[in-house]
């Protein structure tokens, strides 16, 4: 089962991060077509027709998101969410680091489509190298007239501003991102109003993921109708998946949605389990979604199929756990992350992640008590759907499913007072 490389088409071309090479491979033709031959409305219509869905995690149709902008003459902003922080996810990073011009072209074309003169790329705090790469690439694009006061002589101004966050997972949530971008504390805003009506600096704003905006380039190249033929009706196009964990060939893979199963992705493209190991579970959409056990591995990789299987496509971060991976330790590792990253604004997330982390740590250390597992499950109930933003739900995704699917392994930690997998845990 081969990849379908559209976003990654030129990812391995040497020097593709330089504008000359990018142009030699057809770069900036989509933007040229958009600003010189198309109206903003027709560009937006192509995206609508393409059925592209947001690649950041929630999967909301991009064209519809754009259409929510009120037509009231106020200044509009485009914000690119490059705060890729979901554990297990590193697709945006590869795109930015290797092929920055694809993102810049996608951002510029999208800004044109929604009528924004200013676009911002919000990078996670750890992407310092990516910042430098994008900075140079934007300078190159500006020198060639793809970005600036008069893009390609069209009379349209499109400016792209880079912003490096301070290193907070929560800033991947779009309203927390907007607060951070405004120089405020990175914590989510009360919705409504939604960013489409009151976003950055109170103005109508579209926030899209890196992969989403990059996909606008091939959509304009091949046409929205053609793009929509990729994948399925509801899950159109290709998607980048980051496969990590105990597999032979971890990395990013681009596949057509709905045409590849989870098993094919992990066992074929990612090389399958290490020698002598067996995969016991896969977290398919980043660390926030429920685990799938081997009986579910034949699920097709698309939004609906994964939802039907009780999990989510999410960010496409596929984390593989094998029979040497302790479920308690793996979950504890993730809970440490969520405890650390909870912004502290709302009670269930702030207190809940701290509490869950303490209990998991105790169980992993062999100090679990009878009743701990029931309590963990019940604390998940008291968090799920009760928090201000989705971080609370994200924090318990793996724990809640793990408690059901690997109950015996959890129970064994408590009963035996130690990890049943012993020292082989990696």
């Amino acid at each position, binding site marked *: 089962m081969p990849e379908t490389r559209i976003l990654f088409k030129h990812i391995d071309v040497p020097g593709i991060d330089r504008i000359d090479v990018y142009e030699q491979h057809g770069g900036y033709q989509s933007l040229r077509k958009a600003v010189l031959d198309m109206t903003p409305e027709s560009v937006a219509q192509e995206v609508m027709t393409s059925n592209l869905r947001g690649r950041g995690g929630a999967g909301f149709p991009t064209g519809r998101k754009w259409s929510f902008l009120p037509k009231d003459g106020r200044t509009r902003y485009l914000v690119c969410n490059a705060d890729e922080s979901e554990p297990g996810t590193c697709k945006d990073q590869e795109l930015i680091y290797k092929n920055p011009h694809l993102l810049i072209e996608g951002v510029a074309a999208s800004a044109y489509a929604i009528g924004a003169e200013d676009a911002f790329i919000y990078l996670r705090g750890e992407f310092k190298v990516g910042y430098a790469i994008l900075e140079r690439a934007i300078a190159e694009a500006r020198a060639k007239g793809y970005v600036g006061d008069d893009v390609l002589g069209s009379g349209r101004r499109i400016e792209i501003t880079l912003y490096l966050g301070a290193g907070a997972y929560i800033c991947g949530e779009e309203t927390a991102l907007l607060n951070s971008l405004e120089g405020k504390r990175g914590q989510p805003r*009360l919705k409504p109003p939604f960013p489409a009506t009151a976003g950055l600096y109170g103005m109508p704003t579209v926030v899209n993921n890196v992969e989403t905006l990059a996909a606008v380039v091939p959509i304009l190249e091949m046409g929205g109708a053609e793009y929509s033929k990729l994948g399925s009706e509801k899950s159109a196009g290709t998607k980048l998946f980051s496969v990590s964990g105990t597999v032979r060939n971890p990395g990013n893979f681009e596949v057509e949605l709905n045409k590849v199963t989870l098993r094919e992705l992990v066992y074929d493209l990612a090389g399958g389990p290490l020698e002598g190991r067996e995969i016991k579970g896969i977290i398919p959409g980043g660390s926030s979604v429920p685990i799938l056990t081997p009986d579910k591995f034949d699920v097709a990789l698309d939004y609906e199929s994964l939802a039907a299987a009780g999990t989510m496509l999410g960010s496409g971060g596929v984390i593989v756990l094998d029979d040497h991976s302790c479920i308690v330790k793996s979950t504890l590792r993730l809970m440490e992350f969520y405890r650390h990253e909870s912004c*502290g*604004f*709302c009670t269930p997330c702030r207190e809940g*992640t701290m*509490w869950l982390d*303490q209990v998991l740590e*105790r169980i992993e250390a062999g100090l679990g008590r009878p009743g701990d597992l029931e309590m963990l499950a019940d604390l998940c109930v008291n968090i799920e759907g009760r928090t201000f933003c989705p971080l609370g739900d994200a924090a318990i995704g793996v724990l809640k499913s793990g408690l059901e699917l690997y109950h015996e392994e959890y129970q064994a930690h408590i009963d035996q007072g130690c990890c049943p997998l012993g020292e082989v845990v990696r």
Partner: protein
Amino acid sequence: MITLTVDDREVQVQPGTLIIDAAKAVGIEIPVFCYHPRMDPAAACRMCLVRVEKMPKLMPACATPVSEGMVVHTDTDEVQKAHAGVLEFLLANHPLDCPICDKGGECELQDNSIAYGPRATRFADSKRHLDKARALGPIVELDQERCIQCTRCIRFMDEVAGDPVLTVHDRGGHAVIDTAENRTFDSIFSGNTIEICPVGALTSRPFRFKARPWDLDEVDSVCPHCPVGCNIKLSVRHGEVKRILSRDSEEIDWGWICDRGRFGYGFLKHGERLEQPMLRKDGKLAPVSWDEAVSVLRERMQGNSGALGGGRHSLEAAYLLRRFLDQVGTKNVDHRVLPLYSAIAPGPVGRIDDVNDADLLISLDVELLEEAPVLALRMREFQRKRGLRIVSVSPRRGLLDMPHQEAQTPDVAATLRAIAQGEGDIGQEFLAAQKVLLLWNGRSEDVFSAIGAAVAARSGETATLVAGSLANSFGAQAAGLLPKDGGLDARGMLEAAAAGQLDALLVIGHDILSEFPDAELAAQAIEKVPFLAVAGTVPSETTGRADLVLPLAAWAESDGHFVNMEGRAQPYAAGSDRSPQLVDDWELMARLLGIAPDYEAILAEVQSALAPLFAAERRQGAEAPEGGYRPVPGAAIAGASIYYKGVTPDPFLNSIVPQTRVAVAPDVAEAAGAAEDDEVEVSGLRAALHVDPDLPPGAVLVRAGQEGANHALTRAAEVRALARRSE
């Protein structure tokens, strides 16, 4: 109207109402922590989650507006579990030091735990340990362990006070409230955060560990410090005021008070007080009986006498004083001891809640945070919520701390007249606006008459509030404590006394040596007047030189009424015990008059004689009074100071008052060769220098209460550099 169902009960409310308020309307209580009815919702604590049919998740009642046909459940098993779950989370790391907590007994965490909490916790791991006594500023101390991160305090400072000095540091379980970098919590509204803190996290230095709330009796009172007249409660234990809380008034204060009002009670029991009547005999003040004191004063006032004061005392006392002066036949009386021309403006008297629906508010030389602080909060709210237009007309810039337009002018009256004639954008707006509120500092006769012209020029509704006076200045003026029929005003009386033409002077509630804006004249008057009687609560330089000293009960020890800037008589009740020799201010006046000190009868008489002050209707404005404050050309500008407007110097407040500096315009500093922080002398007043670019050229500003300020207000203000501190 929108119809919805809450727990099977039909509710009709205005569109935009939040579920929590709709439920309250039919008596259904939804528990909260972060929600506060006077602030925007945050939905942070998750205590108020309810089930709304057709919604996928439980919804925060504090942040979810109602919609037509909405069906809300606040008491299902699922909702009860959510409530208990949030409480279990909050209590997991709570120190549970309730036995020594200031909030114990009135704590929302305790109350909600009883009503909605789990009966036991499952938390068996180690609690978080944080700073138990973090001084955020001179008044407020934070117990970070008790804090539940509701952010009411942060949002109060940000939204309501407009001074975002508090913030969250760190995140997740490490999140703590603290001041922003390089800031200390020195807002004059800081105490409100203590009152709205749902737990015992924010505490006040004066009250910390002093009493248990359930031991405190609450007595309704009114703040004695400025003409806003915020409603307050005295919390009393064993006859001693232990703290002051707000008493939410929709029309006046919305439950906010300033720190002067909240913390100025320590002097009652712990400050220096006048304790007994004293009469000067053989050059020395010696104790006398009240009977003797009253009879001496009555006798001495029969001659060519005068009286000063009334703005700091009860309406009842002001009314009876007027009667007494009529009885003895003196026309010389003036409540305007501090810089003031009139406490009542011409035209209809404004109401504080006119701010709610005025289109345009013009502030005439009012330094709002110093003169009427809590009014600023309402103005900010409506500026923020519906863009209330605010214009400041003054020689000074920067007098208001919310977004507004500056109309800087050397002549406020002339500018107001021009506006009234429709000149400029502001003039056009002034004439076109449906409702205009004029806010005035009450100082000058010119502006008084310009206000009259402005009110007459408009066809729409116009009203005026005077901010620059004292708690009962309106009442004193309404009761007739002004010179009439050729009587002398304050300056006239002091000039007459200094010239040896006044036989007796009665001063009530003022230290004229430090307060009357011509200390030299006051000193000469005191020197020459054959008989000086001073009634008040605390000793001062003036009482020290008096021939008769009459100790009065303070407002918290007495029943009475203050009449605020709206002309609204508001009752206050005695909460604190008092020294046996003290008498009520109205009681002293009754004795002078020779009538029975029967409060009920006196109040009935006042209510009948001054009925408009007790009626619900808007009061009518005043005729131009005689006399009043006459600033000397070239003298310093009289700045206001909320910390010096009070009835008394309070030991605690004095310890936190920021050091006052003399402010000068940049050209004045340059001419004097002095820079910021240098020590300077202005007509005898020594202070550090503040160079204020918001002052007009040539201006020197001294604040009320500054030692020696009165000299600077009556002489050409010359700034002399003394010592350099600017390095």
